[in-house]
């Protein structure tokens, strides 16, 4: 954290740190995980995104809670894709420690300032005839349960589809936890 905000005056950084997520503010180094340096992005699993956003750095190393960005997951069926404003909230200070990080963060800043949103490639998509209300699952399983369906995003440099998201996979979990398998539960 301190290393990556090195190009900003320390006093300014402290004053503005209030705006940063809780885990990032503490400045603690991640206890168990250090995000690797990626030299060959072509070998990564998952679709290539317009900006190389690294969940492993943000969630794994910096321990930013999922809900900091996907903040409607507990109240809405949609988890919410963070607005560029959310990115810019931190990245107007944090410029990146390596040239490759700096290049990606520059893209974020430009996107915000020119109001040209990146078009993220959707990784987890369900067909239109299925409804998956995020908020109900989070309510039952807790806010750390994202990994159940999305895999351990904390270690994913590039997010890929972890579960099949097919009906059998859904029903399997519903059977194990003995919750309703009514057709209209999801197909309505």
């Amino acid at each position, binding site marked *: 954290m301190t290393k990556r905000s090195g190009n900003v005056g320390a006093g300014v950084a402290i004053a503005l740190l209030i705006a940063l997520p809780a885990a990032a503010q503490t400045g603690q180094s991640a206890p168990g995980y250090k995000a690797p340096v990626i030299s060959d992005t072509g070998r990564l699993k998952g*679709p290539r995104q317009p900006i190389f956003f690294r969940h492993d750095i943000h969630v794994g190393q910096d321990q930013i809670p999922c809900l900091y960005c996907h903040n*409607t997951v507990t*109240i*809405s*069926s*949609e988890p*919410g*894709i*963070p*607005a*560029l*404003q959310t990115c810019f909230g931190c990245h107007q200070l944090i410029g990146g420690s390596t040239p490759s990080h700096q290049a990606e963060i520059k893209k974020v800043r430009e*996107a*915000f300032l020119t*109001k040209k*949103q*990146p*078009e*993220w*490639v*959707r990784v987890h*998509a369900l*067909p*239109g*005839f299925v409804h998956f209300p995020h908020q109900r699952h989070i309510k039952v399983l807790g806010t750390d349960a994202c990994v159940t369906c999305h895999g351990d995003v904390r270690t994913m440099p590039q997010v890929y589809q972890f579960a099949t998201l097919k009906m059998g996979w859904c029903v399997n979990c519903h059977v194990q936890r003995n919750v309703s398998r009514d057709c209209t539960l999801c197909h309505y």
Partner: protein
Amino acid sequence: MDRRRFLTVLGATGGAAAAASACDIGPEPTEHLVPYVVPPENQVPGIATYYATTCRECAAGCGLHAKVREGRVIKLEGNPESPINQGRLCSRGQAALQGLYNPDRVTDPMARGANGQWQKLTWDDAVGRLQAQVKQARGKGIAFVTGLESGSFGELVDAWMKEIGGRHVTYEPFAFEALREGNRIAFGTAAIPSYDFASARYILSFGADFMETWLSPVGYQNAFTRAHAFEAGRDGSMAKFVYVGPRLSLTGMSADEWIVPKPGTEFMLALAMASVILTERLAPPPPDALRLQHLLPGPERIAGSVGVEAGKIQRLARDFAASKGGLAVAGGIAAQYGSGALLVAAANVLNYVAGQVGKTVKFGPNHALEAAGSFKHLADLVADMRAEKISLLLVHGANPGHSLPAAFSEALGHVGYKVSLASYWHETAAAADLVLPDFHPLEQWNDSRPQAGVYALQQPVMQPVFPNTRHAGDVLLQVAGKSGGFKDYLQTRWRALHVRYGHGRSFEDFWNDALQHGGIYSEAPAQTVRLGPEISRLMGGAADTSLQLTTLIVFPSVALHDGRGAKSFPIRSRKSPGTAGWRCIPTPRPSGSSPTATSYSSSRPMERCVRPSGSRRVSARTSSRSPRGRDTRRTADMRRTDPSMPSSS
């Protein structure tokens, strides 16, 4: 795989093959997620937000709840708090969304160049041109035609016209002139009272289509439904509804009894009923009504001219009085002959002698349409236009080029400079020199006063669909050189209401509360009315039984209203009730043509039928073969005179 994709594959490969190889058709097409730059306020993806606003599809002013998902309004419903519509909404109100997202909307300011071609302008240029024209036209005749604007926008136009020496003409095609004139004859006030259908026990409608277009159809429908139903806590009977008129409209079809007098003689029927009530003392007569007793024509005298037996008239009168909750309304197709105002006055006399004025007919909470301009103002304007006394004409919220006879369109040619503040390429916009794209009512700040005591607020429920459109109020303020936008203007006016209705709250609290509820709903004090001095005119009219041989009956369309419904495709393809299978057929735009006024003219606002006044039965089928001609001809004219309409893209 979604249904559409499945059907595509099915079509391409045949059913069996698709069913067998459903898993082999490859992955779903890549979806993209586009984040917000700055998330909109009060919006949670996946959860709808509701805003209260006001419907502007007709002059009734129903309250709306707009359902907004991800910053887009997706559904409108009635606002249950609004006393106008009590949570209900008609199909035209529902279809307001079709107007909002209409691809034929005007997207940029446009001006007609020297060669007649339309060209896009920047807003600075457009406002500059208008300012220059206003400067030039000062003292040479400026006129501003608007629809009914009973709120701040109307006041802004009034104030501006006063400042630059112009005149403001409000024009509503359904302005209910006969209603206002009839009330003036009967009671000396041209107000349109509130009709309490809900507590009426016997409803008598002389041609008033109160379930379709008459004044405030949504509220009346709702109230009628309650009156015409068995309800706990009331005596066991439901209200009776008798419809008097030559055509069985949707309203007529809901009646318990249909009386068909000769067209143009309905007022005699009403007077004869009043006469029966007075002579038989069926209700305690108001003291000033007694002098009418010997003036009113008895049922025997007029039965022949009206074509309804005297016994039937007596029965109607006795039932009306005995119900102790009679309500006679008059309007619509029965009030459009020369005797229209007399009919309204006669219905008023009937209500009056039955002691119902002040009960089911309440003066005080009057309808906003009392402020609409009269056709005389409009005729004067057209005469002045033709005499080249108008050098600058501005039109907003009205389409006189479509709903007025061709004389208006011809007179337009004599006007120096024509400006249309319009959302659509309708006939008037197409004939203008400068077109300034206005916000849709769902995108703008505004207010209106649909009924005395009701102050309905409009707030933008979403960002403008077309970013280069502007609120006409903002444009006028800019042209007039005033600082601030229309919202500030509106709030300034609401500060006066804050003094009256604020109850000690801060203005911000008061304003937010009004926004949340859709406005301020207060009770207007009741007014007592007495028979006016001109009532003897009515008796003179009753003696005149000379009638035309053929009567033209023009009736409004429940779907298209005065023609403004034509912009919405669902409305145009909607079945027109009560037309016996015959209706206007929506004409799709010829492919490849630009969105022009012609696409709107093709559906007519009114359906016409002609029948001889002597015939007894209405045959919609035979009568409906009547003239379709005029609008089509006007459409053709428009096409000739405006060969170069711009494409909105």
